[in-house]
């Protein structure tokens, strides 16, 4: 690998990183710690796809307080690791959902909230609605229209358990891959209309 002009050259980063990872994970058993940390630090990104956002907002209100699980709704996708599809995803929004998902750093998780996010719900035959599971991979589904805040809390709890049970985060750190899931590519290019 030759040093490119104008770039900082700090040695073979890949090899160094892999070695450091092997030492950390192999000898120190950090995998479980990462799973634990990720499960108690699920920060949902602020993407309000539809009207379930009112119940999502209530989940983080004082009565149900989603922050007790360590979840803090965060503004910028780069610093989050959870996306909650809050209801219907329209064709126009699907592009935004996909872009947001791709902007988030791994290991990342997704919750589909509400009937619209599962099978269209009331809008099952609407011409402007797409199923979110065709756009991004979903970990937990919440039925209801809109689901109660407790359901969202239940979904977060179940996701925490799933992460710890299946070592989703630790596996990612070790292998760079979510073991249970191929990356979902949308059937059609959801942003084609926008690119023109």
């Amino acid at each position, binding site marked *: 690998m030759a040093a490119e002009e104008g770039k900082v050259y700090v040695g073979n980063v890949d090899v160094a990183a892999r070695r450091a990872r092997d030492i950390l994970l192999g000898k120190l058993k950090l995998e479980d710690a990462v799973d634990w940390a990720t499960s108690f630090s699920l920060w949902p*990104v*602020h*993407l*309000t*796809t*539809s*009207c379930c*956002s*009112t*119940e999502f*907002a*209530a989940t*983080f*209100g*004082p*009565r149900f307080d989603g922050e007790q699980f360590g979840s803090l709704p965060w*503004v910028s*996708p780069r610093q989050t690791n959870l996306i909650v599809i809050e209801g*219907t995803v*329209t064709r*126009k*929004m699907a592009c*935004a959902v996909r*872009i*947001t998902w791709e902007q988030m750093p791994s290991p990342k998780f997704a919750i589909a909230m509400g009937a619209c996010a599962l099978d269209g719900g*009331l*809008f099952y*035959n*609407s*011409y*402007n*609605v797409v199923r979110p599971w065709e756009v991004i991979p979903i970990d937990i589904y919440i039925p209801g*229209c*809109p689901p*109660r805040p407790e359901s969202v809390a239940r979904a977060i709890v179940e996701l925490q358990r799933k992460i710890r049970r299946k070592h989703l985060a630790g596996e990612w750190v070790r292998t760079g891959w979510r073991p249970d899931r191929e990356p979902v590519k949308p059937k059609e290019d959801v942003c084609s209309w926008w690119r023109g």
Partner: protein
Amino acid sequence: MSGDIRFYGAFKDELGLKTIPSRRIAKDTYEIFIGPQHPGSGHMRIIIKVDGDVIVEAEPDIGYVHRTMEKLGEIRGWIKPIPLFERMAIHDACNITLPYVRAVEKLMGVEAPERAKYLRVLLCEINRIAAHLYGFAIFGIFLGHSTMYMWAMGDREVWIELAQELTGARLTHSYPVPGGVRRDIHDEYPDMVRRAIRYMRKRLEDYRKLFLDNPVIKSRLEGVGVISKKQVVELGIVGPNARGSGVAYDVRLADPYEVYDQLDFEIPVFEEGDALARTYVRVEEIKQSMNILEQVVDWLEKHKGEPIIHESVSSKYGPVHKKVLQEQRRAKLLPLHATMKVPAGRAIGRGETARGEVIYYVESDGGLNPYRVRIVTPSARNAIAFKYALPGHKVMDLPAIYGSLDYFPPESDR
């Protein structure tokens, strides 16, 4: 009035609809796409062009939550659109569906019984308070005031609890049906409402101290996003936003429906037209809604046991239906509701939601489905305000104006 208003490097034309820069706008304006994944946008995108820190052009790019309500309303019979249209503004569910139900009732020539009307008003006002509190919550977080968000969300739960007690669902009540309502209140309910009102009155005092009189918030809102009376009429802005600019336009006043003309309450109007005035309209409306609620529960207590559904439905009730109505206070639907036919005709249903006037234009050709349902929601009419109110303000005023307009994209996009 426009004397107080400062615009940064720009002034407005006579009507105040166009911003004329006082100096030449730099050619290399900075274009910012705010949304849809953006904390300050909700489910929409605002494309703004800034010259320095001043917005010179703003264009709302809406339609991210367009769920084809008008089309689906044409194929789903007459009763299924009630839950459908509810999804436009689920935290204001009764207000947004009632005009549709009323339009259908008008076409069918039936009228809900008196008690059903009071029950509808009861839920409408509970919804209005909850929706205003939701607006406050979003407004608070837009201004960085997280405590306001939490408080309003928490106090909204009180009203949601009341609505849930009445209808069995937190938000999506699907409560009014053509000819009446689906459930009646139980005996302890009026006391619950009264307790909630007493609580809320105390809390509004705390709101004032922490939020409305807070110098930080006040300086963010005063003189920001001014919409003049003329502009309101020209742009067709409705609801608290119009009443914050001195236009006393409220459907409950202009074209009273249900029992609003028998109730004693005020329509608060402020003349200033800035973000602070719009906020205060909502505070005053919460107070007035509580006045209405007090009168409504008093009436309901006095008139126990009156029918809650129209005779044309209740006369077809069998023994099971009657038992349910008696014991669970639940007015059951009839199988004929699913395949209802409505006489041909055209009607406009209108009502005042928390955000303003909603209009349903319902056309029937006498068939199983509505021939055409045209919906104009308050947010859809207010969306145009972004285009004309934002230019001339700083980028940091955007959330203040957005929040004060209390714009809800799912409602706007339909």
